[in-house]
């Protein structure tokens, strides 16, 4: 089977259990088993090639530019690990099928499990280290899901997060390390990297890369000081613990170190770091394991300890060490998986894993007892069991290793570690199975069905077979070792046998076993001493670190993201000022190129007005209506300034917009407080004034800078001046630019207006359909109202003036192309005319008599403008291409017809619609329950009097008489 398939099968198969969930538990487990089996068989199909020393390859490009390709390879090492993963996987699946409770979602469980399995296989088969990284991180994720699988278990969630955090951290470090490694080697393919030992070790980036990679490996493999997450992960269902946290995932770190052994090992840094970490982990893990009462915790720490052992072996950097490591991996996988499953059986049956509540199970669960005992003795290093063999090799290697210049250090620590190891093994056996049968088990235990005990039994058979006949494993281990060593070293000649003679390792081993047994015997006082000894507990420390990090993050983030817009704005202004100052200050400033134009008194007068009005506005802004008046003055003077500087269109637009804006603001102010409270303190005001003044100085300086210089090349508007009549058919260049040269801007601009109106309308609707509605309807006005809402004089004047204003609007519209004016201003003027009518007789009365669908007006405007633009497509021209012609219809003079004018109609309609829709919205908000819709255009009208009751009849009569 292709390597792709071997990796892909678990992933593809992961879909199945989830889908089969409804088909029943058996089906779920069955399909998962089958999927794994397919992959396993696929792997085995490559065995002949592997045994023949070939490296099976499969390559496909994924991200070649990045050097990230799906390059897989299968050599002995990869095969070894893949076989472990898939083989143990098969057993675990069978075991899990019986283990999981009825309420557990099996589909979910097996989906995660298969995802994990696929990722794990991916790690070991990857030839590309970036690809390996992907699988690496996926195992962390799958592990996260599996540890947290029992979502009701608090420890599960916490353990999952801790595992994710620690291995995630390692994973990210690994990313950095591997990227550096690839950078040094010039490729991310392992096959290339492994050939670059000299280059890598000579590189100045070697040490950072090594540290980062080791951080990844140590966290993943729970090496000291990152060992603490693993026992917490034991909250997972036992199959998960057995599979991930014993047999496979934790070995990913080991695998990585083995894989990169040829290029990374052999340096002092590698030796010191790896060996030390391994040794310490071995000793500390074993010590902690000894005093754990939870069977799985005990096994977990024992795993930590054994991983330390393997790490230490890899750290020595010798070929023999590497070989011993590989052998121990094999052995550890067999006995530890069996132990986990046994512990799971005990837990499953006795409903507790607390060793203090157990004991005497030997009689109740004989099968389990046998399996567990053999596995545990192997772990303790008892001869004729495989654990003994690799431990011997380890001790032998330890004997030869000199760390920190002390030849005794490593052997002593190795022996101590082995001693503790033996002790907890004896305790595991003794406290669980020996002793009297108790009557207070949480549940009455007995041997389970074969589904649960057969998988560990198979493993135990292996334990014995290898233990008795190590030569059976020898070629395979050597094959694997050869692949670990690569070109860096030769596979050692040593034989795998039970009896090596009276070598120091044997004595160390004896010391360990005997000492271990003695410790087991005096366990009770030791436990008391242990309990009395203060020692750091990882969980609260970890929690503390996380809580501290969260608190730190909150302390940093929350205060500056607290919703204080005013500060956000201040920061932004300061950032802009700072950046602008920097940019200007670091540039070249030349001499001015233009003459300053002399000031005229009028200009100075106008200038003084703007300054004064602005100053008064700023000082008195808290009186809101007054502020509006002042801003009106500023706008008026700015408009006058535009006139002064030859921009009549601008002046008109500015002023019209000004008035409409003030009207809108007045409409809004009707609902708002009329005064701004005096809230900000003097300091704050000084600060803000300071920022404002700096900003003002900057704006002055910048504009003065530009005003006194010419553009680096002639402005493009020369073209517009030259062609506005020739090409645009108008003499008002500004208007021609607006509707023709840059008509697209204008198109966007009217859309902005249209959206503004739609938005205002939509918000009004929303407000009026929510809780605000009642409040608005029953609103108590905050000011006294004068009588006579619609005074006669205004009404009568409007009747005459409004049509005239409309006509002026029309006039402005028509003239726009050639003289100041145009669709936009015309639209505003027409709106103003209607506003006048609203103000005269009220919105209700006015709109009841003439109701335009303002939505429609906006829509029509935008559509007309857009369709005018599209119209040019039909003559094969781009959007908004204008054309014009001169027409003469008697009795009128010749006049110009330009498509741009049609576009201007669109502008006009959109403006009118937008302004009117906005006003309508405000008016609807202002409606109160106590308001009566007026049926008359004016409140007071003596013409409506009943002639008979006219109080002035007397007077009139009297006057007629005198006349």
């Amino acid at each position: 089977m292709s390597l792709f398939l071997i990796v892909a099968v678990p992933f593809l198969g992961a879909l199945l259990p989830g889908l089969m969930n409804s088909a029943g538990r058996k089906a779920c487990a069955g399909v998962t088993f089958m999927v794994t089996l397919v992959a396993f068989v696929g792997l085995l199909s490559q065995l002949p090639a592997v045994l023949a020393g070939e490296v099976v390859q499969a390559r496909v490009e994924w991200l070649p530019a990045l050097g990230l390709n799906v390059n897989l390879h299968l050599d002995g090492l990869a095969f070894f690990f893949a076989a472990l993963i898939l083989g143990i996987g098969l057993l675990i699946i069978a075991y899990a099928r019986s283990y999981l409770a009825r309420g557990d979602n099996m589909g979910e469980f097996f989906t995660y499990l298969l995802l994990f399995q696929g990722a794990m296989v991916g790690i070991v088969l990857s030839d590309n280290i970036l690809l390996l990284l992907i699988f690496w991180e996926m195992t962390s994720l799958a592990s996260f899901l599996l540890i947290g699988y029992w979502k009701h278990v608090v420890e599960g969630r916490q353990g999952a997060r801790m595992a994710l955090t620690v291995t995630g951290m390692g994973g990210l470090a690994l990313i950095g390390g591997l990227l550096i490694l690839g950078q040094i080697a010039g490729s991310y393919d392992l096959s290339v990297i492994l050939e670059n030992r000299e280059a890598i070790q000579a590189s100045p980036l070697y040490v950072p890369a090594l540290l980062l990679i080791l951080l990844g490996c140590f966290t993943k493999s729970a090496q000291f000081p990152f060992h603490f997450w693993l026992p917490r992960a034991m909250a997972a269902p036992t199959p998960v613990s057995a599979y991930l946290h014993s047999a496979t995932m934790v070995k990913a770190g080991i695998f990585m170190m083995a894989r990169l052994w040829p290029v990374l090992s052999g340096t002092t840094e590698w030796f010191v770091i790896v060996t030390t970490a391994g040794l310490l982990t071995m000793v500390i893990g074993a010590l902690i394991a000894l005093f754990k009462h939870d069977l799985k915790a005990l096994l977990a720490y024992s795993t930590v300890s054994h991983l330390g052992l393997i790490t230490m072996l890899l750290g020595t950097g010798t070929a023999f060490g590497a070989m011993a490591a590989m052998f121990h991996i094999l052995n550890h996988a067999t006995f530890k998986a069996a132990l986990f499953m046994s512990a799971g059986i005990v837990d499953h049956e006795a409903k507790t894993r607390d060793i203090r509540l157990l004991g005497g199970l030997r009689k109740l669960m004989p099968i389990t007892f046998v399996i567990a005992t053999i596995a545990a003795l192997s772990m303790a290093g008892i001869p004729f069991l495989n654990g003994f063999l690799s431990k011997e090799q380890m001790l032998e290697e330890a004997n030869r290793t000199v760390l920190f210049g002390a030849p005794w250090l490593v052997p002593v620590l190795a022996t101590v570690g082995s001693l503790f190891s033996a002790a907890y093994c004896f305790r595991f056996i003794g406290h669980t199975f020996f002793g009297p049968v108790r009557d207070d088990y949480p549940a009455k235990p007995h041997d389970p069905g074969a589904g649960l005990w057969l998988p560990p039994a198979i493993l135990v058979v292996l334990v014995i077979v290898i233990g008795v006949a190590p030569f059976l494993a020898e070629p395979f281990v050597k094959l694997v070792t050869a692949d670990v060593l690569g070109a860096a070293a030769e596979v050692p000649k040593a034989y795998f046998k039970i009896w090596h003679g009276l070598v120091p390792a044997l004595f160390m081993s004896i010391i360990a076993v005997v000492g271990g047994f003695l410790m087991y015997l005096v366990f009770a006082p030791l436990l008391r001493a242990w309990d009395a000894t203060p020692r750091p507990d990882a969980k609260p420390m970890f929690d503390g670190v996380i809580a501290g990090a969260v608190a730190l993050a909150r302390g940093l983030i929350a205060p500056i993201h607290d919703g204080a817009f005013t500060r956000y704005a201040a920061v932004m202004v300061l950032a802009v000022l700072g950046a602008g100052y920097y940019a200007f200050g670091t540039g070249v400033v030349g001499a001015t190129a233009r003459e300053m134009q002399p000031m005229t008194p009028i200009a100075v007068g106008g200038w003084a007005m703007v300054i004064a009005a602005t100053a008064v506005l700023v000082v008195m802004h808290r009186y809101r209506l007054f502020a509006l008046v002042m801003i009106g003055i500023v706008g008026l003077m700015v408009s006058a300034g535009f006139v002064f500087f030859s921009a009549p269109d601008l002046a008109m637009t500015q002023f019209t917009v000004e008035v409409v804006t003030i009207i809108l603001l007045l409409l809004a102010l009707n609902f708002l407080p009329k005064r701004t409270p005096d809230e900000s303190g003097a300091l704050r005001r000084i600060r803000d004034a300071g920022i404002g003044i700096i900003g003002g100085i900057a704006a002055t300086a910048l504009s003065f800078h530009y005003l006194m210089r010419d553009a680096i090349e002639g402005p493009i508007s020369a073209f517009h001046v030259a062609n506005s009549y020739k090409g645009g058919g108008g003499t008002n260049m500004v208007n021609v630019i607006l509707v023709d040269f840059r008509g697209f801007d204008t198109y966007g601009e009217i859309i902005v207006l249209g959206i503004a109106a739609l938005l205002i309308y939509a918000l009004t609707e929303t407000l009026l359909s929510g809780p605000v509605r009642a409040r608005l309807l029953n609103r108590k006005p905050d000011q006294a109202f004068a009588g006579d809402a619609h005074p006669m004089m205004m009404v009568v004047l409007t009747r005459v003036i409004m049509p005239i204003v409309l006509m002026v609007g029309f006039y402005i519209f028509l003239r726009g192309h050639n003289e100041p004016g145009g669709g936009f201003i015309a639209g505003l003027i027409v709106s103003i005319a209607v506003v006048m009518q609203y103000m005269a007789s009220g919105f209700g009365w006015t709109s009841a008599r003439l109701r335009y669908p303002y939505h429609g007006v906006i829509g029509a405007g935008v559509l007309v403008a857009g369709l005018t633009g599209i119209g040019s497509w039909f003559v094969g021209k781009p959007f908004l291409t204008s054309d014009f012609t001169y027409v003469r219809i008697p009795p009128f003079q010749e006049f110009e017809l330009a498509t741009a004018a049609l576009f201007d109609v669109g502008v006009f309609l959109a403006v009118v619609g937008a302004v009117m829709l906005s006003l309508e919205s405000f008016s609807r908000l202002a409606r109160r329950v106590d308001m009566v819709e007026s049926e008359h255009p004016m409140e007071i009208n003596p013409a409506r009097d009943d002639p008979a009751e006219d109080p002035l009849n007397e007077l009139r009569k009297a006057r007629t008489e005198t006349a």
Partner: protein
Amino acid sequence: MTHWLIVPVVLPALMAPFIVLAARYHLSIQRVMSVATMLALVALGAGLMWQTSDGTVLLYQLGDWAAPFGIVLVGDRLSTMMVLLTAILALFVLIYAIGSGWDTRGRHFHALYQFQLMGILGAFLTGDLFNLFVFFEVLLIASYGLMIHAGGNERLKAGVQYVLFNLLGSTLFLFALGSIYAETGTLNMADLAIRVQGLEPGAETAGLRVAAVLLILVFAIKAALVPLHFWLPSSYAEAPAPVAALFAIMTKVGAYAIIRVYTMVFPAEIEATAGLHGTWLLPLALVSVAVGALGILAAKKLDRLVTFAVISSMGTVLVAVGMFSQVGIAAALYYMLHSTLAAAILFLVVDLTRHGRDTLQLITRAPVAGAALTAGLFFFGAIAMTGLPPLSGFLGKIMVLQAGFAQPAAVWIFSVILISSLVSVVGFGRAGSTVYWKANIVEPDPESEATAPSVMAYAGVGGLAAVLILLTVFAGQVHSYTQATSAQLFAPNTYLSVVLETPGKLSDPKGGE
């Protein structure tokens, strides 16, 4: 004369008023028209991208006026890619909006949505700086409408800040444009590039530098670069979910503009702009990455968490942009595609999570129907966003890191991005396990009437997820496209000559007047 290039702008611009006029009271017609438009836009985007994929630069002279005198739309690899991305995002987000019923919770959703797209697409396509301003305004004002869609006090308060901040931004934009016109006498980007690069050595540069720096600040605000990012968290958190999801592209508009303008017009290596953006964009981007990650960890609400993830991911984009190298920009573009989708997915998932919950605070609530699927999607989105394998976020991050090797600040780039990733992972892990896992310890509320979100809502999220997966699987192809795009950006001769040498009405090539 083909008009394809302008259709992405004009189609929604015509569809919106049409919806307002003709289908104002017919929701189903609005929906059908809206979706149809999105499908058409996807097709258009794909077509344009295919057309430009060989390096062709498409030009559309509005009003038949040649650049720089008139406004032109320019389609190159970059702009068409952004058009397609926007269209795809908008399609699925729209499906979600319909499926979740968000479009019925206020008026004119569909019209505003169309206008929003018009603005975004116009911003991507225009070749004129002032026109870019206009499209910014179109997209902003539509976004105001969408942001406060459905109302509510919190949303309106956030809306006020959002609008005000952007008004300040628009003001700054105008200051920048005034500076640019005053200094160079032109507004067309290509013309500007020629004029800027034609500066004699030793010529006066102070004014030009200010113009360049003001402009990049405008774009940085849009791109939520720290410390100009303050507008983002509350506005995105309070915006209706589909809107927030659509907004995922809006920050990219800022990034796009930075890429466009600061590779072609104001490249970092010319004398006039030396030290202007090269010096501080990258450090600030790194700070953004960190601030975003810390915000993820600090968040007490799920929606706030996602907004900080957006800040962090924008930071990553800008880190890559800030290298101003060809590999850097290629990485930035890929990461931009990714983070747009990832952010959108997360915003939608957060909304799905809201189903049956009274709060988005990171506290435990009873599980509701559909929670498992939602949780799965959250997990997916979180993996994508934090840059964990195997999704595109990881690939994008690797690209950014690889590009970072050549930088003097490589150590910083590596440490900040990697450590921030870890912090994000922790933050997402905390939040996800609290919200989705812990729910299982609470008894489901039998009174709860919350039903599972509709299939269509899931389809919207699922569609985005599918696109993200495609982005992962075809990462090689996509990346070679972004590399080609980056190469095109760093060799803008074709762009410049197509824009400036195509004759228009009354003008010879190179502007005979």
